[in-house]
């Protein structure tokens, strides 16, 4: 028998010895012995997982003030029914639950003569304060974002959706980590089949530990070879609530501030919260800027290379002469120059992410000087090409969620554009389009509502109509579901 499945013995000393053995005398286990009404008891806690002040006030003090003489069974009954020591008071019958609760910040009470223990939820571990999410910034929306503590995140959602239709289902995942996860959905809108399929998928996870969303994402995404995500991540409670209202399912994971939302649509990469705070005409305009930015990010360097190398007749004569003069001095071929600059940009971006904030500024100065100034002045790279790459890179920042596919596709397009011109770009364009169209998850195609085309949804894709028109939609994501997937 697995030692953790073993039930708690009645003898206190045996029980404590078992605890020390299972925990391998770990230094963060605190065992305090006390006598409550002539019965030897022990209070066990994990250091750092609870607030000692709260534990003393809410647990230790009331327990030590019990004066009536009871046997251990009646003692536990008295504590559970008459003393409200905490709101969360599960009964522990085996060591698996014992340690799960202990490491979750519960205080466990063992008593001589009892083959069970009482647990009291007085979690008080240090956690980050709620602040603006780092990735999803906006101007007019809320400035709070999810943090690593799952229960805090649940409260952030609940504060915005004060309806009994919003349901949370807590469970644990990870054989060793026993990480808390929470499925969150609106019971009246969620497609039941989607919920069943997700639960079935999560039941198949056999990981030892789940430390971030990436661990579970691959289990929830069906299309392995797809460049584009079919599940989305968000750090914003307001964005999550809007998605829940559309019938989507959220998966919160303890220990990460990102929440997985299923299913995802490709057009969501171009929607931000500010679109719903600005006037419709400006929201529509900024939406189209984002679409344009995506195409610029992926295709601009490749089109520049293809046109310069294979189809210069597409440019007017003045432009051709300017580009010819610029490229004459460059020692490398156009695609090589472009790939070199893009790779340097990726290196600088990675460096900027990993460096401490205090030296982050130096990275931008050095990269600007080295690449922007010295390389051009020395003739290593040409100015028009650098301009194209810079526009492409800046355009990619407009849709940060698509950073990975944009980076890969941009490089691939540069290669095929350099080799085969617009013919190659057409071939790779079809491959990318097919890859996007083939991506679906749990029967929801990522390309909806563009393909299959749903005209009603264009009011929030091609433009953003005002809320008076949107409120009558009663839209749920189930409209996009393609059966028999």
């Amino acid at each position: 028998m697995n030692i953790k499945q073993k039930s708690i013995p009645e003898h206190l000393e045996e029980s404590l010895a078992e605890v020390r053995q299972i925990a391998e005398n770990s230094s963060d286990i605190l065992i305090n012995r006390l006598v409550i009404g002539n019965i030897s008891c022990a209070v066990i806690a994990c250091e750092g997982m609870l607030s000692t002040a709260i534990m003393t006030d809410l647990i230790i003090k009331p327990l030590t003030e019990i004066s009536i003489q009871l046997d251990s069974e009646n003692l536990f009954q008295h504590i559970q029914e008459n003393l409200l020591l905490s709101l969360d008071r599960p009964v522990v019958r085996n060591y698996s639950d014992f340690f799960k609760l202990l490491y979750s910040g519960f205080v466990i009470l063992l008593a001589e003569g009892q083959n069970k223990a009482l647990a009291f939820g007085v979690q008080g571990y240090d956690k980050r304060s709620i602040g603006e999410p780092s990735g999803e910034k906006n101007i007019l929306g809320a400035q709070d974002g999810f943090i690593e503590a799952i229960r805090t995140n649940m409260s952030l959602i609940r504060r915005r959706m004060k309806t009994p239709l919003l349901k949370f289902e807590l469970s644990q995942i990870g054989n060793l980590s026993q990480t808390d996860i929470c499925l969150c959905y609106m019971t009246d809108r969620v497609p039941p089949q989607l919920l069943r399929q997700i639960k079935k998928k999560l039941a198949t996870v056999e990981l030892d530990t789940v430390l971030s969303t990436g661990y579970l994402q691959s289990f929830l995404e069906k299309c392995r070879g797809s460049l584009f995500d079919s599940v989305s991540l968000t750090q914003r409670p307001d964005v999550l609530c809007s998605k829940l209202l559309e019938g989507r399912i959220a998966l919160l994971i303890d220990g990460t501030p990102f929440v997985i939302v299923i299913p995802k649509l490709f057009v969501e990469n171009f929607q931000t919260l500010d679109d719903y705070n600005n006037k419709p005409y400006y929201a529509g305009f900024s939406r189209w800027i984002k679409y344009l930015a995506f195409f610029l990010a992926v295709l601009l360097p490749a089109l520049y290379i293809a046109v310069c190398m294979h189809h210069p007749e597409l440019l007017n004569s003045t432009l051709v002469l300017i580009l010819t003069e610029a490229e004459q001095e460059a020692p490398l071929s156009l695609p090589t120059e472009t790939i070199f600059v893009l790779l340097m940009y990726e290196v600088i971006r990675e460096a900027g992410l990993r460096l401490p904030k205090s030296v982050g500024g130096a990275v931008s100065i050095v990269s600007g000087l080295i690449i922007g100034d010295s390389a051009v002045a020395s003739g290593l790279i040409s100015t028009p090409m650098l301009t194209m790459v810079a526009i492409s890179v800046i355009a990619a920042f407009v849709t940060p969620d698509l950073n990975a596919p944009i980076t890969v596709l941009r490089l691939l397009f540069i290669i095929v554009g350099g080799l085969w011109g617009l013919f190659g770009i057409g071939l790779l364009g079809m491959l990318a389009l097919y890859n996007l169209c083939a991506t679906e998850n749990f029967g929801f195609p990522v390309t909806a509502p563009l393909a299959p085309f749903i005209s009603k949804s264009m009011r929030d894709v091609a433009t953003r109509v005002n809320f008076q028109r949107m409120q009558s939609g009663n839209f749920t994501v189930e409209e996009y579901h393609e059966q028999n997937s």
Partner: protein
Amino acid sequence: MSKIRSSQLFCILVLCGAWSVICIPSMNESGQILGTIAGCLLQILFCLPMLALAKRQGSFEKLIQSQKWLGMLYIIFFLLWGAQSFIQLWEVSPPQLLPYSSKIAGGILIILTCLYTSSVGLKATARCAPFMIALFIISVIILILGAWKRIDISRIAFTRTGFWDSITIYNNLSCELMIAWVLLDRVKGRRNLAINSYLLTKAGFCILILFLSITVGGRLTELTGYPFFMLTTLSQPLQGQRADALYILVFVMLYIMHITIQTGIIGHLSEFLFPAFSKYTAPVSLLFMLLLAWLADSNIMQSITTISLPVLAFLVPLLLRMKQFSKSIHKEQSQHEAF
């Protein structure tokens, strides 16, 4: 394979039809405009049996499952059509289009692309079709904008020359009806509307190309042999530069879609006939098409597809419908007698 929407079927048929129109040769007589309209009406008539059958779900699939030899005939038709498409690509594409002078090299690049596009299934193709339609519409608008200033209506001489030829040419290049017939069981929504809309759209596009080639190209149309490519050369929206290289994008993407649909349908039919080998059909059929195109005689293949198109797309559904109709009458009569 799950269902596709009628709008997606429309997009697929129009894209295949657009490729056929791009490859139409020698259309420079105004009488051919009337011939095209007549050809379109003839095809609407051709489609009546299959549309009547489509009201009863599963007609085509039941037929293929019961008559496997017929399924093989359809597969052979699509293989021949695919091979012809490769030949059309080599004949039609101007020298600036393919990056290699060797035909095989260009064909191999296309096959490598189609290997992936046909492996993801017809559903992905159906989703891709609306995006391609949008790109196609943009390219047609650019073509019209470029041709606008050069249109000379006086070049149209209203004659009946070419009327009968154009009906034949138009019907020879209408193999999309086979796609419609094969996929009809898998379409949800208004199938009649999708097919009729496709026929009208294709006719409209053909008439547009014809009209522009006569009014813009005039006598130059006879030189190139393919009016669409002559138009892309002559219709330049801007004075300082040539924009015909942009059509390479549309041309290549249309062609990939065209071949992918054919390969996808062969795969779909193989699921009924050779379920154990269905995952190999895409690479095998693509290679077979390329080999056939390289080795076989294009005139023989053209003749076979021309003869088999009305048989497989019109006669077979007609006979099937007549059989169903006679069965239903017989059933009614026996019910009446029993009563």
